[in-house]
């Protein structure tokens, strides 16, 4: 097992498995977030968030989620730096742009940008909700209102929007790439992985983009999006 984990293929396997796990998490995350648009003053969203905190299963998965992020990032840093070392003298003319897409060649860069966003994102929501308790049932503010307030800040809304677009491209390449790494690609199934990855990228991209866009404009226009149904 150690031999496997130390090998190039072992590291790639970890990237793939953790990456796919993170994709799975995003499904859940998008679903919960969309409850913000229920128009009930954020009630459904706040209740869902609250019940997740008290769900043992979710708490266990949460540990794996943090582990997955740490492993994915650690392995990404290792792989990216090792790969850079494999070509100590660079080419005077770089032709990789003609044979591979920009996003496939810059997974390290897009990953680093996503990581930056995750840190800011956790600091904005996870820390006050779960650690200091200033937001949530016992805090001075509900989580849904905290979200709405945070996205009133044009810079945060912009960072959010740009990050999720980058995330979409990361997944568009990453999803099918993970199946290749896991040895599951062949002529029959590759098109399926590619199309699924692209579909997920579009769903996540547009889905998560809706939060900064709609909340920011609801702030600017004065239309109360949390309560539209009441």
């Amino acid at each position: 097992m150690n031999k496997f984990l130390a090998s190039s293929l072992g590291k790639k396997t970890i990237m793939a498995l953790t990456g796919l796990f993170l994709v799975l998490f995003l499904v859940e995350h998008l679903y919960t977030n969309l409850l913000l648009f229920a128009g009930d003053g954020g009630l459904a969203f706040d209740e869902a968030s609250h019940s997740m905190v008290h769900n043992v299963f979710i708490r266990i998965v949460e540990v794996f989620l943090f582990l997955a992020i740490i492993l994915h990032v650690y392995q990404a840093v290792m792989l990216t730096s090792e790969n850079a070392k494999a070509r100590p003298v660079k080419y005077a003319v770089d032709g990789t742009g003609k044979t591979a897409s920009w996003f496939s060649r810059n997974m390290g860069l897009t990953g680093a940008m996503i990581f930056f966003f995750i840190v800011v994102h956790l600091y904005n929501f996870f820390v006050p909700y779960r650690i200091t308790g200033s937001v949530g049932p016992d805090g001075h503010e509900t989580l849904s209102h905290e979200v709405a307030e945070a996205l009133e800040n044009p810079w945060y809304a912009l960072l959010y929007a740009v990050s999720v677009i980058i995330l979409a491209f990361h997944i568009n390449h990453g999803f099918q790439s993970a199946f290749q790494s896991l040895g599951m690609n062949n002529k029959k199934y590759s098109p399926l992985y590619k199309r699924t990855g692209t579909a997920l990228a579009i769903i996540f991209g547009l889905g998560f983009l809706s939060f900064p866009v709609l909340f920011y404009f609801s702030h600017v226009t004065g239309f109360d999006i949390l309560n539209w149904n009441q």
Partner: protein
Amino acid sequence: MNITLKVWRQKNAKEAGNFVTYRLQDISPDMSFLEMFDVLNEQLIGKGDEPVAFDHDCREGICGMCSMMINGRAHGPTRGTTTCQLHMRSFNDGDTIVVEPWRAKAFPVIKDLVVDRTSFDRIIATGGFISVNTGSAQDANCLPVPKDDADKAFAAAACIGCGACVAACKNASAMLFVSAKISQLALLPQGQVERESRALNMVKQMDEEGFGSCTNTGSCEAECPKEISLENIARMNREYFMAILKK
């Protein structure tokens, strides 16, 4: 055709190299890229200069020696060709063409455009063979191999070990090469005896040689003169997983 060449010149493995510009006149569009270099070298020798060292052997696209990075593309801009099969008609009159050696830690430059590819040989030596005695040519019916497998093995066996995959990959990864060698033997009955040890040993040697890891960008497949498929890398990964589980 008139061509301006910027060629990497490097005396030996130790000294630093640099680009030298050469202007060539009246180059025939029907010349191969290597013949164009022959013309250049004739002129250099005539002037008493050192000719440009470059690898070549068969000049018909089967030996894999003619490694050149041409305007950032392994073996030049055309798909599925080696440098010896690339013709000057693929360029325009008045073009400036930059020619560099393969760049990879595992492929050190020996001189000018010549690199040392013995890292590939060492990988082959760890598993790219079969040790069973296959005897003399048998009746085809004695070896029932499905057509599909035979075709896939044949397509993988088309790899000429030129190193374009490594040269073209942003990570200088050798996985297309290694996977082609592993696939070719894993798909056929003769390759079964060493199937697991082959996958383990060749991947181990590949890692030790200092090649990068695949990030599935697809540059290798796009640049491979034999158009070896990325499917082989997926198969190598499968072979490796199975071998790890069994051994």
